């Protein structure tokens, strides 16, 4: 049993291998996922281990990857498709939105699409254009999908197992900025983590910080630094951004009375807007200050020389926390 400290990327690989071992219906397809093991190496070694019938290098066509995945899933396979970068997912959206997300519903359960679409996303690695966007809200708006974002090696392993075992389509967005940022011991024991549930990463009493993906790193850093000033932050990792577990967030805000939401994606109609709106609808009397959002700007993701200006940082989060605490 593997119990070494591994990266988030290695945890993805470990989860894929584990499920391929357990279930022969699990297959992998995508661009460069076979011999090359994926451009980030998420599928490294899998073709050698499971053969090219189960690890398929596809022609270079994202719409086709989406379409193939729908057809394979409806046949009872469990395809896991890699879209090389989330910026290239758009040709596949018609298949994800118009078919995968609604196959079960439109056939009243006769057919379904148990598939996983994996895509690295987000900025911060000085990548070329179209390689750094965070467009998770586009998918989170679609009924019938699940959108899952891990924020640590252990959660990547446990959530990916759940995503693969889930009988419905799951979009699994991997925050590539933290692919190799840190290591954590992960036990390869096949233990899944629940979907549709937030994870409370740090308990606190003064304010609730809500985030997901790579921004969890800055959010935890802010909480740590604020603790030195006796500000007690509760940190919630949303993990499944759709369907969104508002119960955990509401319970936390009932306790703290304050909330800051942090995401890398643009602000307008981002997932943060949904969280803030629900807090106002359901917890107005608990709130001692308006919920604040710390997000990317409503601009095009800049080329990498300016990307750090676009992305929220630890200081932004700390400022927002202080502003919220000072609200009277």
């Amino acid at each position, binding site marked *: 049993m593997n119990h070494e400290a591994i990266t988030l990327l290695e945890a993805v690989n470990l989860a894929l291998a584990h499920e391929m071992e357990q279930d022969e219906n699990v297959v992998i397809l995508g661009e460069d996922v076979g011999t090359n093991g994926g451009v980030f190496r998420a599928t490294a070694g899998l073709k050698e281990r499971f053969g090219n019938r189960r690890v*398929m290098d596809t022609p270079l066509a994202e719409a086709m990857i989406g379409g193939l995945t729908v*057809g394979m899933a409806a046949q009872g396979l469990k395809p896991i498709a890699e879209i090389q970068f989330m910026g290239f997912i758009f040709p596949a959206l018609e298949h994800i939105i118009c078919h995968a997300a609604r196959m079960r519903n439109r056939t009243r359960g006769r057919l379904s699409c148990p598939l996983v679409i994996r895509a690295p996303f987000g900025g911060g690695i000085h990548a070329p254009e179209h390689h750094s966007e965070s467009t998770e809200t586009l998918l989170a708006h679609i009924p019938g999908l699940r959108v899952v974002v891990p924020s640590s090696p252990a959660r990547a392993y446990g959530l990916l197992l759940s995503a693969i075992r889930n009988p419905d389509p799951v979009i699994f967005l991997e925050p590539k900025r933290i692919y190799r940022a840190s290591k954590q011991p992960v036990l390869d024991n096949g233990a899944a983590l629940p979907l549709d549930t937030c994870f409370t990463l740090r308990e606190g009493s003064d304010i609730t910080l809500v985030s997901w993906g790579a921004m969890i790193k800055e959010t935890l850093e802010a909480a740590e630094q604020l603790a030195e000033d006796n500000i007690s932050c509760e940190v919630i990792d949303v993990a499944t951004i759709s369907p969104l577990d508002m119960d955990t967030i509401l319970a936390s805000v009932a306790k703290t009375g304050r909330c800051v939401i942090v995401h890398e994606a643009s602000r307008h109609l981002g997932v943060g807007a949904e969280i803030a709106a629900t807090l106002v609808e359901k917890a107005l009397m608990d709130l001692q200050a308006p919920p604040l959002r710390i997000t990317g700007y409503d601009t095009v993701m800049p080329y990498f020389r300016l990307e750090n200006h676009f992305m929220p940082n630890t200081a932004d989060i700390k400022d927002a926390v202080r502003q919220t605490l000072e609200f009277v």
Partner: protein
Amino acid sequence: MDTVFEGEIRYRQYLSSQGDPLSALPVWAQQPEWLTHCYRNMVLARTMDNKAVALQRTGQLGTYASLLGIEGIDVPLGLLMHPEDVLIPYYRNHACQMLRGMPMEEILLYWGGDERGNAAEQQGEDFPNSVPIATQSMHACGVATALKIRNEKRVAVTLCGDGATSKGDFLEGLNVAGAWQLPVVFIVNNNQWAISVPRALQSGAPTLAQKAIGAGIRGEQVDGNDAIAMREAIEIALERAREGKGPSLIEAISYRLSDHTTADDATRYRSNDELKKAWEHEPVKRLRTFLHKQGWWDETQETIWQDEVNSMVQSAVERYLATPPQPVESLFDYLYAELPEQLREQREWAMVKAMKGGTHHES
């Protein structure tokens, strides 16, 4: 310079528009059984279609895509596919769907705005209608990949119109089918019109079948109004796919004798003369004339069968009209395998709102 590639597309036709053999018929077509069976089902399909249009015109069915003119393609296909094959249709293949066991009332239910029209257990693993153009081409490749991975001797068959061949999805489907030698058959119902846009504006290619050449798969053009030619073409393509010999593209030349759907008015963009001329080549009359000339079918049989078909269609219509709507909670109940907690509240709102005097909002 050296020639590094040459290709050709051949055209298959046995019967003239007047129902006369143009060349020696295949052995099976020298016997009445299959062809009369095929003809009966073409009449059934057309009768169902006429009734469906009438239901729409009288407010008893939603917008409906008529099958008029596709009978020569869909009926042979429906008869030739094996039950274990998988049909990945577009939205005009009701005749094939019926032959694969889908009850007529389920077809009406679908066009009557009810998801249960995609849920009939007789549909097996067949896909529901694909409304987004050409997307089904790649679903068929996904299905075929699954069949190939599992070493099953089954075939995925997908259809689309001529307009769909302009879409990347269609070409990406052909491409991967060729690259992976998938057990899939693509049939293009080239009925000359994509709503108002004629075939000539879709592509500079003189045939649509030749798009197969670019993908490295076999392609042929067939008279889609000639059931004998269609059976030959389909049988060869199915057999090849089943035996692991790779995919095929069949361009079936037909004519859309109806409007695009009941929401369309084709008089805005095509001439009555053209339509009138197209009726001279239509598939049902062509086969009937051939059967008459062979002495395999006569007026008495025609009358008896038409009566029988009318009553089959009538009872299906009655079953369709007697089907009560689904309860409102069905909006939620098939969205996921298990309804996420997060949606329970909205499900309750919907049920309250659906009750007389109910309010959909939280108190």
